[in-house]
Structure formats: structure tokens, C-alpha cells
């Protein structure tokens, strides 16, 4: 266990991001897909903060704050759409929502 460098943080962020990508690609439950997107946004935040720490500037912290604000807006609108969808179609499975396809 040597010293922790920026590469460690970036590797963790890459792993978390692609676990999120896997969730979006593989899962069919819309709630889980939304939470995977939140996970991906957090992984990106980790990259910003790690670079901010290792370049000694704080711009990354401000951008991480903006990403969090956007994630909050996304979560609110996404969940409102989800509730609407469930009210009209009584499903949260992406496979059952094929109105635009057929």
C-alpha cells in the first residue's frame, strides 16, 4: 500500500462510472436506471474533485456543486415522469414501454 496518487482516485471514478453504465444498459427497471445515472454523475464529481486537489485550484469544487444541482433537477423531473408513467401505464419496466417502437 503505497501513497495514494491521483491515479487511484481516477481509477475508482472509472470503476464507479462503468458500473453505472452497466446498470443503465442491463437493468430494465426505470428506478434502478435513474439511480445508476446518479451513480455516474457522482463518479464524474469524484474526477473533478480529484483534479482540483492535485492541481491546487478550486474550480473543480464549484463545478461539482453545479453537477449536484443538475442532478437534483434531473432526479426531481425524472421521478415526476416516473410517477406519471406508473399512473398511466402501471409499469416501471422499460421493456413494457414500446409505444414509440411499434
Amino acid at each position, binding site marked *: *500500500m503505497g*501513497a*495514494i*496518487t*491521483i*491515479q*487511484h*482516485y481516477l*481509477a*475508482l471514478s*472509472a*470503476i*464507479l462510472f*462503468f*458500473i*453505472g*453504465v*452497466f*446498470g443503465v*444498459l*442491463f*437493468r*430494465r427497471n426505470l*428506478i*434502478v436506471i*435513474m*439511480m*445508476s445515472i*446518479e*451513480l455516474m454523475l*457522482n463518479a464524474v464529481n*469524484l474526477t473533478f*474533485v*480529484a483534479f482540483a*486537489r*492535485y492541481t491546487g485550484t*478550486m*474550480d473543480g*469544487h*464549484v463545478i*461539482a*456543486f*453545479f453537477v*449536484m444541482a*443538475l*442532478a*437534483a*433537477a434531473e*432526479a*426531481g*423531473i425524472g*421521478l*415526476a415522469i*416516473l*410517477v406519471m408513467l*406508473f399512473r398511466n401505464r402501471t*409499469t*416501471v*419496466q422499460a*421493456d413494457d414501454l414500446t409505444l414509440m417502437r411499434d
Partner: protein
Amino acid sequence: MEAIIFYILAAVAVVGALLLVSLRNPLSGAFALVSALVSLAGIFALLNAEFVFILQVLVYAGAIMVLIIFTIMLLNLNKEELREAPVSPIRLVVTIGLCAACAFGVMKAFGNIPYLQGEIAEGFGSIESVGALMLSDFLYPFEVISLVLLVAVVGVVLLAKKAI
């Protein structure tokens, strides 16, 4: 010491993320995600990002996850609605392979970043200094974000109403 804390927090974050994408019940997944987000907050603290650490706990692990968990509980899905269509093992292997290959490539590319010293000034990442930066250099993005949040609030109210 930093290494031990980092590896513990990173392990919790990765396990939480893996549980999120693998558990069938979205509520269990949400709690796994909360644990991942809290350990990410610890990693932000490890990176001297005091302001982002506080926001992560308050906004992410607090507000956003409470919103998601409330929605899951309000929808009150039964077993039948939670079933996911069975997936072919080929699709599983291809998706895992694709994600693992991409993650490996990205990590390889990150390895080319030159060694950064990481000298930081006094008060780095404190609420005061980040706030001063946010309201000087980033003033216009800050105003645009407030507009985005306003539009989101109006949009959510319109969407959630039964009839317009």
C-alpha cells in the same frame, strides 16, 4: 493512514454500486446506493474538499436519496411489477465485457497523466473560499443554475398534477 482509509471507502463504494445494479428490489438498491454515496463523501473529505463533502451528505445522501426512496415507497410495487424479463447469458457477458473493457481503457489512459504534486494553499476547499470563487469567477453559471432549478420546479409541478 490515508491509504487504509481510501481503500476501505473505495471498497464500500464499489460494493454498494455493484449491489445497486444487481439487486432486484429497487429499495434495497437505493440503500446500497446511499452507502456508496456516503463513502464517496468520505473520499471527498480525504481530498480536502470540505464544501463538496458537506454537499454530498446533505444534497445527495440526504435530499436526492430521500426523494427516490419516498417515490419507491409511494409507488408500492408488488412482486409482479418488479419482475424483469429474463436475460440471455450472452447479453450479460457482452454488457459486462463492454463495460470492463471501457473501464480498463479509461484507467489505462488515466495512467498517462503526469505525476501531480498536490500542493494546496491554506483554506483549500473550505466553504468560504469555494463560495468566494463561486460568486466571482462562476457568477453567471451560478445564476444559470438557479434558473435551471426554477424551471425544474415548475416542470415537476406541471408533470405531477393530475390534469392541467
